[in-house]
């Protein structure tokens, strides 16, 4: 008898809890869909999102602080120094390795590497994931102008220096000659 009672009790309990479940799901039946149709509609991405990096190349001083901070050595940079100006060869970030941990952003002394909001890493071949963050290679136009100006200034300075040295030498020579001539009294 107890078994029979339990049998019917089970059926009743199951029906009851099914109805409770149906009530909860039923509440959401007439709600508007919340699905976002991805490529057309997009959810807002927060400012701090850790996506693909972007580099403020003008600020970068090629100090390798970010490359040293990277746990998996995925940042590589190469630049030729012309005095104070830099001639960029490459600044690559290997997104096959990168784990988007943002550790490269904090040690930067010039605050020039940031993580952007782009996240789609869709390529046809793996090798394309080795991104070059440089917007231009070689030297920027204004950097070249600055370098040329600096070189010209340097040339002028050197010329002035040389002229001064020559003058000084000439003066000394004159002085020697003068002392000689004074003694001679021929002129």
């Amino acid at each position, binding site marked *: 008898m107890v078994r029979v009672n339990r049998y019917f009790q*089970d059926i009743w*309990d*199951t029906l*009851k*809890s*099914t109805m*409770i*479940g149906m009530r*909860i*799901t039923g509440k959401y039946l007439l709600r508007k869909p919340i699905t976002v149709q991805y490529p057309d509609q997009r959810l807002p991405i*927060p*400012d*701090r*999102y*850790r996506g693909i990096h972007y580099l403020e190349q003008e600020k970068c001083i090629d100090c390798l602080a970010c490359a040293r*901070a*990277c*746990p998996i050595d995925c940042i590589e940079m190469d630049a030729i120094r012309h005095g104070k100006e830099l001639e960029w060869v490459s600044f690559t970030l290997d997104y096959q390795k990168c*784990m*988007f*941990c*943002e*550790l490269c952003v*904090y*040690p930067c002394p010039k605050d020039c590497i940031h*993580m952007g909001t782009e996240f789609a890493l869709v390529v046809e071949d793996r090798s394309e994931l080795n991104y070059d963050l440089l917007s231009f290679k070689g030297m920027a136009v204004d950097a070249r102008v600055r370098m040329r100006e600096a070189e010209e200034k340097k040339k002028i300075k050197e010329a002035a220096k040389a002229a001064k040295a020559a003058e000084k030498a000439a003066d000394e020579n004159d002085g020697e000659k003068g002392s000689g001539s004074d003694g001679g009294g021929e002129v």
Partner: protein
Amino acid sequence: MSNSTSDQALKAHEPSYSTEERRTLPSGEEEFFFDVKTSDLEVNMGPQHPATHGVMRVLIRCDGELVTGAQAHLGYLHRCAEKIGENVEWLQYLPYTDRYDYLAAMNNNLGYSMAVEALMPGFEVPRRATMLRTICVELNRIASHLVAYGTYGLDIGAITPFLYAFREREWIQSLFEKICGARLTYSYIRIGGVFNDAPPGWLTEVGHFCDVFEEKWKEYRDLLALNHIFIKRTAHVGVIPKDMAIDFGLTGPMLRGSGVDFDLRRDMPYMAYGEAHEAGAFDVPLGEGEKGELGDCWDRFSVRVQEMMESIKLVRWCLEVIEDGPIIGDVPKVLKVPPGEAYVGIENPRGELGHYVHSDGGKIAVRCRVRGPSFTNLSVIEELMVGTLLADSVAIIGSTDIVVGETDR
């Protein structure tokens, strides 16, 4: 211990063979009798099986529907996380800690950071950082328990609660996305404090989340935890008595489900938990054998469901006491940790997550070792599954709430 027990069980189920019998029927036909040859069947559950929650293989030996032995085979997700810790700088190891228990990355960050901070004498984390840490860790605990809740339903055969659980988990993830920029591998809690301060309006949104979650939590309870079919599948299944739980070194909800009152947050307080407990901000829910026996699968599940609510209380308390201030202590960019060794255990959603670090005063750890709760909790299934039905083995594995990334590391 588990091996000897399963051997005994195997001996008890030695296959019995009988000889072939033959008799002649009155009609003149011959009839053969074969006793069905019974031998144990070995079934591979995994490596790719939806109920193992990752790449794990359980070798189950069964006699018909009865499980006579089980053995967990690990290592499919081994990534040398501990060895990497001995090859990269202190701070550089932080992103790797995200990746062993990927459902509770904040907790892993915290455990490692606290272990390194323990090596720095006299170092104190600023108060605002402590509070932000506590909020993030507790939100992460809710997110992790929501996955445990959803996937356990999925194992048992209920698909709807999984989708409901992921709705709130998604909200928590977007909260984390706002504060640190990542949705799963946060690297937010850093040696000395936290990476970023909370953006404007973030704390208000967390408060709003707490209000909404309280309502939704009742839905979770009614939808799955108190569902009669679910109770029938989980109550009286996989019972872990108190002694057995302690013997196997279980921690977290697995231990508390068996009625052992032990929670590191309360018994060995770290960060703001001691203060929070004094203020009565949280209780430690225990299994009570409400629907079946003490320590069955339902009790463990119920402890997780109740802990979500305790976490909400803790977050609320933190939001009340949080004040402005610095978010990171004075930590040099190139960190050199004084020589020494430290072990710090924290309460992960799955149990005690311990980090042991050993420094010789350099930039890199000499030894870095992790005590993962999932790994220890998993050891009990070999014992639990013997003598149960094959269909219950899924319920038992699901109730341990393992993350395979952490058992293998």
